[in-house]
């Protein structure tokens, strides 16, 4: 019985993902035949079988990521059962014994080299230097022949050289390998000799990853992986700082309350707070273009137009459709465009030009009940505004306590480009716009 393990594809590569099993349980495999495919974080490869025999058990399914050295499958050697000692004395886990206590580089390597090691340790004659004297050139080995022998675990003393003067050629080695794999006493039979007792074979082996009760292990979905990278990268490149203002939304709330039914009847969708905030932020970006800028190498690109990214959550994660030319739109135009983008984003029907080219982003965790947020900047932009829950709060107005619709607007900004004074001025401008503008005109209701 041969244990197939996750190979090591370099010293710093610690785990790999099974992409595909090229053989199913019960199929026969031959030494060096591609058995499965793995993917590491940098490179994919197909992995050849370490022994001939029958693939009796696949322990790690496709799509799972496991550590280097993890047992992935079991190959039972042809005739292996016969070779196993009756009532074998080897205990559970004894199949690990033939693996020599090697250095870290050896752990889990399933190259021909370890196959050679197994054969050698089983009492087969030690390979060269002592080759039998079969001719004047029988002692000469080319690098290619040495390599082939090493790869296939061939003891060259067993190979009859047919080249000039008895020299062993590539053909001789390959012919030997072929003959050997056709023979029933394949090297795979050797590990079987120290394999587990018959009763243990086929018993379930615990999965390699430690999973406690109540836990579930799922592969990272691709979108999740991209979000993770993007967020981490943003924190690495930016000098993020943060501040917030509290905005009295009474003005907007009353207007919305008054017009929302007529709006819905005419437009076919609900009037939310988002278009109001987007309109107010857009004006502030035009007034303070540094907040709408990008650091590109040693240059600052100041953008005198606004392409507003609107973070939209959907079942797989997060997407940021871009409202192009937000600075050219009034409140109604913005409301329609946001509704259109968000609807199509959730239906995964955005066009490619609708998801890049943003100059600033607004995220809106409010509907989910968040009070205040600390967002991560959407690179390569310089700032992001979070708009949280609008709720009634007691506030002091003209030395009296009043109840008003209030909200926290918070801004994460890149201190490489923006200073606290500018960030505060910008937020104050947004606050002032929301508190003082008459939006009714724009809605034409």
């Amino acid at each position, binding site marked *: 019985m041969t244990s197939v393990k996750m190979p090591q*594809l370099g010293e*710093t*590569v610690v785990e790999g993902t099974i992409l595909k099993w090229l053989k199913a349980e019960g199929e026969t495999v031959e030494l060096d035949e591609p058995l499965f495919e793995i993917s590491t974080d940098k*490179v*994919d*490869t197909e992995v050849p079988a370490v022994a001939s025999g029958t693939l009796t058990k696949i322990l790690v399914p496709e799509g799972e990521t496991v550590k280097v050295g993890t047992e992935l499958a079991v190959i039972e050697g042809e005739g292996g059962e016969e070779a196993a000692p009756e009532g074998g004395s080897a205990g559970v886990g004894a199949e690990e014994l033939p693996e020599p206590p090697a250095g870290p580089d050896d752990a889990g390597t399933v190259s021909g*080299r370890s196959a050679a090691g197994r054969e050698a340790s089983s009492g087969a004659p030690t390979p060269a230097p002592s080759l039998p004297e079969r001719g004047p050139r029988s002692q000469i080995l080319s690098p290619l022949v040495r390599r082939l022998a090493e790869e296939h675990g061939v003891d060259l003393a067993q190979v009859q050289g047919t080249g000039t003067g008895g020299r062993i050629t590539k053909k001789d080695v390959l012919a030997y390998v072929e003959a050997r794999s056709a023979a029933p006493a394949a090297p795979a039979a050797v590990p079987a000799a120290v394999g587990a007792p018959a009763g243990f074979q086929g018993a379930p082996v615990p999965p390699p990853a430690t999973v406690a009760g109540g836990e579930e292990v799922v592969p990272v979905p691709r*979108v999740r992986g991209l979000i993770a990278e993007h967020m981490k990268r943003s924190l690495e490149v930016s000098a993020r700082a943060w501040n917030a203002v509290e905005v009295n939304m009474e003005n907007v709330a009353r207007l919305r309350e008054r017009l929302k039914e007529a709006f819905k009847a005419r437009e076919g969708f609900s009037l939310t707070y988002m278009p109001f905030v987007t309109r107010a932020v857009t004006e502030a970006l035009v007034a303070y273009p540094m907040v709408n800028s990008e650091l590109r190498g040693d240059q600052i690109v100041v953008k005198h137009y606004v392409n507003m990214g609107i973070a939209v959550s959907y079942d797989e994660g997060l997407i940021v459709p871009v409202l192009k030319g937000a600075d050219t739109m009034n409140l109604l135009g913005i409301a329609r465009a946001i509704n259109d983008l968000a609807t199509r984003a959730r239906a*995964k029907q955005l066009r490619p030009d609708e998801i890049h080219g943003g100059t600033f982003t607004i995220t809106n965790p409010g509907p989910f009940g968040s009070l205040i947020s600390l967002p991560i900047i959407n690179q*390569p932009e310089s700032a992001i505004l979070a708009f949280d829950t609008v709720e009634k709060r007691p506030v002091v107005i003209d030395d009296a306590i009043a109840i008003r619709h209030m909200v926290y607007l918070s801004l994460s900004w890149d201190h490489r480009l923006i200073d606290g004074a500018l960030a505060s001025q910008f937020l104050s401008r947004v606050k002032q716009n929301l508190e003082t503008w008459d939006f009714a005109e724009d809605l034409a209701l």
Partner: protein
Amino acid sequence: MPRSGRLIRPEGPVPYREANALMHQLAEARLRGEGRDTLILLEHPPVYTAGRTSKDDHVVWTQEQIRRAGAELHAIDRGGSLTFHGPGQLVGYPIVDLGTRPEALGYVRRLEEVVIRAAADVGVTLHRSDVQTGVWSGDRKVCAIGVRLMRMRVSLHGFALNCTTDLSWFDAIVPCGLGHTGVTSMSELAGREVSVEEMAPLVTQRFAEVFDIRFDHEERSWPRASTVAASAS
């Protein structure tokens, strides 16, 4: 003493299917201990290639849009996601025997090093990313790298360096709108036209240097299928 290597640098674009077939043939020969380590440098007609980990919904354009734009879409055996190849992009397919204990990560790092040095030759400073393969300028990818090993030993696929590439081709495959991790080209970065013809000899030279190979077999014509086996052995 550097190893002897083979350089295939055809004039004119090579269809993806042909290049893919040749690299697999050369790798199989290499696996049998035949032929030499080979670098293929070429340009493709517009083509999108989908690695194993990419899903259909990562193509933003429809098949129809891709066809109408004059490109093909191929599902291939490389790792990674979708990428674009086309005019103005220098594509390199090294078929290198990495031995029985491949240092896969080291191999990818060496490919990145080749591109970083070649870019420096025209005054463009590029760098690696901690999280993704490829060669970058800031947040923008200049060179995509996707590698696969045959039998855990011989390299397939390789790198794609944008020289004068029309970057709007990449619009078709931005997988999600997380404020894109954008792409750029050597020309955009250098502020002048840096062509495939200009970069190819520099990449060849730097590849030879980094991989310690002497390209003493250079071919400017595309090997026909019948001649592949002959020249590989």
